């Protein structure tokens, strides 16, 4: 147990070093960074306008527009966290497994999962977190929402848990690369599912609600925490499950990683 904590501490300290290292890489291609930031920003802006027009035309029963913007703003926070960290997951199959970069990962005295997650960052996606916060604050002012210290702490905690849930789902999909050689990966259809989290789960059929809560738990990343923060009556108690769902998702993904790792070291491909 003590060993576990010292390892955890070591990795936590190195996380800073890895981030700094990757930042240096990005800074060395400044033009590329600004283009990426611009692209990412305009993506968010388009999304915003789409949402705005949608809310102008469509009524969501029992939901005020500001509440919907609150939900949308909140959803951007875990989404941003996820985007910052998920860069390598998409390329894991092709770069790490097929091109052999994973051998080098195994030769370093660090957790292999740590290295794959933190060897590159989509730094520009941090703007999504900022944009999300701005919209959240704007919406909560219109709602007359008073932020207590507890609310702020909860917001940060939920945002982080949401990020963990997203990462876990995609990490789980990534682990299939240990078994199947494919360059595209299983991610794209699930990526599209992320959009569902920007709307109240209650508008969907019960099947989709079940799917997004208990199979691919994106609902716990965005909808249930937002409901709790907004103080709305429905699904109130679900928010308490958020950290559990996050921990369970990560456990499943990490377990699958472990098994994949074992397969890799017996087949080497």
């Amino acid at each position, binding site marked *: 147990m003590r060993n576990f904590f010292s390892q955890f501490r070591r990795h936590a300290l*190195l996380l800073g070093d890895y981030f700094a*290292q990757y930042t240096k890489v990005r800074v060395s*291609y400044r033009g590329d960074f600004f283009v990426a930031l611009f692209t990412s920003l305009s993506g968010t802006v388009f999304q915003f306008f789409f949402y705005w027009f949608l809310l102008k035309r469509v009524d969501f029963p029992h939901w005020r527009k500001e509440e919907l913007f609150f939900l949308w703003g909140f959803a951007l926070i875990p989404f941003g966290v996820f985007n910052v960290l998920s860069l390598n997951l998409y390329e894991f199959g092709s770069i790490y497994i097929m091109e052999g970069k994973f051998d080098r990962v195994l030769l370093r005295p660090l957790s292999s999962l740590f290295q794959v997650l933190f060897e590159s960052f989509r730094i520009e996606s941090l703007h999504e977190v900022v944009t999300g916060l701005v919209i959240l604050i704007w919406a909560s002012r219109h709602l007359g929402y008073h932020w207590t210290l507890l609310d702020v702490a909860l917001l940060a905690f939920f945002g982080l848990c949401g990020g963990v849930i997203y990462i876990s789902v995609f990490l789980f999909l990534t682990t299939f690369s240990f078994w199947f050689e494919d360059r595209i990966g299983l991610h794209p259809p699930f990526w599209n599912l992320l959009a569902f989290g920007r709307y109240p789960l209650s508008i969907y059929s019960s099947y989709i609600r079940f799917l997004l809560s208990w199979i691919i738990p994106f609902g716990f990343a965005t909808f249930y925490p937002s409901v709790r923060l907004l103080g709305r009556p429905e699904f109130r108690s679900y928010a308490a499950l958020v950290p559990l769902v996050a921990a369970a998702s990560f456990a499943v993904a990490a377990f699958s990683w472990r098994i994949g790792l074992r397969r890799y070291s017996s087949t*080497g491909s």
Partner: protein
Amino acid sequence: MSSAPLISVKNLSKHFRTFKRREGILGGLVNLFHRDYQTLKAVENVNFEIAQGEMVGYIGPNGAGKSTTIKMLTGILVPTSGEIFSNGFVPFRQRADYVKTIGVVFGQRTQLWWDIAVIESFKLLRRIYDVSQRDFDARMELFDQVLALRDFLHTPVRKLSLGQRMRCDLAAALLHNPPILFLDEPTIGLDVVAKDHIRQFLKVINAQYKTTILLTTHDLDDIEELCRRIMIIDRGTLLFDGPLAGLKERLLRTKQIKFILRDGEQAPRLAAFEKSLAAYPANGALRLERLDELTCRIIFDRKLISSADLIRQILAAVEVRDFLIEDEPIEEIIKRIYAGEDPGGGIPVPAAQP
């Protein structure tokens, strides 16, 4: 060996299950559902021990099992059967602790961060391996002396020449001063000067830190210059393990004498000499080749013909400006072993099956 070996490998085997790929789109579809598996014995019942401070050359043709062995020794691959103890660890079982005590260089692949200055990679590796700033500075100093890194420490890795990059990769693998160093083709693609740099460096490291080095290579000059001991593997099986000198002594079949004629006027005398050679007692044990107008080479069986005799005859027949006597190149010997000649000697390969 008096002390316990640093690396010990017993009955090591690695089998892969592969399947035949069918070609084309239709074949690809069939592949999804039906596969004909076959077992590939990449490494089969290999045994050896390496003592601390040894430099061992590990050679074999492509696909012989060298890389698979290295991958098992470094903890990347789990053996199908057999045992590995290396520096007190079972590599794949205690990976994270074990890899702290080894350095690994894959000649074809860099472990440095591609887009930023070399020094940044070293700094991060220092943190990853928990090397103190003092040790780091001292080692960088030494590495710089032998490898002359200073000139390009602040150059991004992608802008380095292959030779410079390899020097950096070596330094990176040794920053934490590991007792064991594994090198997979460390001189591949390098020019003569760069190769020499690398070899000198390995000698220094081996002498100064008693670093144990196992290297695979296709360049037998690496082996001749660095390793007293070689292991030869082919089709997964160890064919030879022993001193290079002994191997040469046993298997060296031919020598060659190269000589340069004094002038063009020697031509008729040379023709006469060539005729007389045909009548030489050990017929077929010798042949003369003309390399150019003035240069000739005689390749002869060293057991049947003494080089002194031969030289005397040459001198009696033609006027010669220069001589060169050489052993059969080690490549030729190795080629014959791959082709099935019994290398004999060495450390007998125990056939102990559990």
